[in-house]
């Protein structure tokens, strides 16, 4: 790693950097989706790829998510490594059959003869005042599907390293990008092709009193809550799960063994969210360690409201703080 590879970038630029790196270093990587080539993606995540790698490897598709999902499966069985973009997570559902019934099963079905080294990318989450269907947080739907990895970066560095890992992974990865963080923060990222692991959570902050477990956009609010709580003398351990499936329960259990308390924060609606699996796992395996119930701070069990009321749906720093105060008081 040399100094001149260090760049100060936003999360979406880190995505773009990772795509450039991997396409330059691996001919089998191709990119496809709606408006990703000439336009460079509606969020500019794929900008420059067509110019550098040409239409052959950077493909604007017709408007059909089912087709995008399924075409990527076919490409992957041929040893290509397609990175398929869904313009928003809210438009991925038409592709669900290929994701659930094919991408995740091809290896198992053929006993390893064929497999699907593909990445399904999608911007997700709310907070950008977008129209209906543009603010979905349905990572739990994918986390429940055996054979899929579901990866969610929450910083430019992790976006870069996790996307590289996702593309190199020989199995299908659903890669969800928190769009309200796309340009919210910048970080120095070394453009050195270093991937991050897909099988461990990232401990962002160490603490003794309570474990805050989160991922994606809510990492921001959770870190802010931890800062406030630190001022009150409460030591928070903040864990970015990052790969929500398959889940690294060990890191979470170790942390809770230490703190005895856990608060889970996610933007998705609560019922059946990934938080439920984490809470259930902790409650089962850390039963004797837990000094308070595992509490979830999350979106409401409803559809994301149109943007006038969006802010009422999203978990806030103060919600996290008060959840921590609640579990700490027990």
């Amino acid at each position, binding site marked *: 790693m040399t100094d001149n590879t260090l760049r100060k970038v936003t999360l979406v630029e880190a995505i773009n950097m990772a795509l450039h790196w991997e396409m330059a270093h691996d001919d089998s990587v191709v990119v496809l989706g*709606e*408006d990703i080539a*000439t*336009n*460079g993606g*509606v969020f500019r995540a794929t900008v420059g790829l067509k110019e550098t790698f040409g239409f052959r490897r950077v493909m*604007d598709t*017709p*408007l*059909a*998510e*089912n*087709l995008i999902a399924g075409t990527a499966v076919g490409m992957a069985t041929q040893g290509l490594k397609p990175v398929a973009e869904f313009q928003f997570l*809210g*438009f991925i*559902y*038409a592709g669900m059959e290929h994701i659930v019934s094919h991408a995740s099963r091809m290896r198992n079905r053929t006993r390893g003869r064929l497999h699907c080294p593909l990445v399904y990318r999608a911007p997700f989450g709310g907070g950008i*005042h*977008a*129209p*209906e*269907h*543009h603010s979905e947080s349905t990572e739990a739907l994918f986390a429940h599907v055996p054979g899929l990895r579901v990866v969610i970066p929450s910083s430019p560095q992790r976006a870069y390293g996790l996307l590289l890992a996702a593309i190199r992974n020989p199995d299908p990865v659903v890669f969800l990008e928190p769009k309200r963080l796309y340009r919210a923060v910048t970080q120095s990222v070394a453009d050195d092709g270093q991937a991050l692991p897909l099988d461990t959570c990232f401990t962002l902050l160490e603490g003794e009193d309570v474990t805050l477990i989160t991922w994606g956009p809510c990492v921001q609010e959770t870190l802010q809550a931890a800062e406030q709580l630190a001022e009150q003398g409460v030591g928070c351990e903040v864990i970015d799960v990052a790969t929500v499936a398959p889940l690294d329960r060990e890191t979470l259990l170790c942390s809770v063994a230490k703190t005895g308390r856990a608060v889970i924060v996610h933007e998705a609606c609560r*019922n059946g969210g990934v938080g439920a699996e984490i809470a259930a796992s902790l409650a089962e395996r850390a039963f004797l360690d837990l000094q308070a119930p595992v509490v979830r701070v999350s979106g*409401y*069990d*409803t*559809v994301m*409201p*149109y*943007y*006038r*009321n*969006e*802010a*009422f*749906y999203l978990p806030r720093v103060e919600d996290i703080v008060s959840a921590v105060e609640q579990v700490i008081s027990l």
Partner: protein
Amino acid sequence: MRKRHEFHVDSTRYLDDNGSPLGELPSQAAETERVLAAYRNMVLTRTFDAKAIALQRTGKCGTYPSVLGHEVVGTAIGQAMMATDVFVPYYRDQATHILRGVRLEDMLLYWGGDERGSVWPACPEDLPIAVPIATQCCHAVGVASAMRVRAENRAVVCCVGDGGTSKGDFLESINLAGAWHLPVVFVAINNQWAISTPRGLQSGAETIAQKAIGAGIPGHVVDGNDYFATVEALDTALERAHGGKGATLIEAVTYRLGDHTTADDATRYRSAEELKHAWEKDGIKRLQNWLHDHGHWRPDQEKALQEECRETVDAAVQAYLSTESEPPTAMLDYLFETLPDALKEQRERLAQRSTEVRHDG
């Protein structure tokens, strides 16, 4: 032994780019009042559109999809439909909504981030805007099936973009419409672009209308900037539908004169030249010229109309801007007919927040 199965679609246009007739006009051209009403609706739509974009640019409205270039086809649809028919829109059908009785402030509310923008008392059966592309096509055949189940003499008009015609929903739906002889008219509004994706990348087919052939229904191409061609095709298709003769696919060829939405910048992917060329084919100007040339319209009328449209739009903007947001509990209150017990605690939490200062407007 070889057998040949032959198929065709026709394409129609009556006016040249300047509004001069290319030959004999259809009977619709003789209905002066209707033509004038169409023209007025086009101008109102365009005035509204400019205002909505301005509101977005000044932070008073959310992402908004301009209707520029769709005024003619949208108006023709609204005129051809009966009040008892059901309109199944996509998101760029402002011209039709106005004729169906949707209030301008409702459209602003919708794009301004308020669900109440889809409460349409004047056309309570029309479907709300479908954001997921082409999904409305399946709903349209569902609505038409309900009419068939009840043996009603009503019909459905469903709009979809050129991009949307690549998606299974559209293709499956036109097929069902053919198999079940449903009273539905699909209008594929071919504005040449799906965000940055040009029509040519959507399909290798010469026309979109020919997709009707695989569904076993008639397909027809019209110049979507030619009011007479478009309204004639709609009238004919709706007559077929009302007469129990089944479905039609109309491809209305036009051009998206604006950006895809206010979040888009079309200069990234298309040339100024192409856009300029498209403006030359503008259907409003064309109809205005025809009206002038045939003595149906005078400059002072135009001036008055412009003034009237501005006032109408301004009043709507006032109504929109003075509409208070819903309480946050609304996000739970319409999910089910009655609030399930499972959501009661969450509703209470939200109710406590009702008095909070909003983070955003």
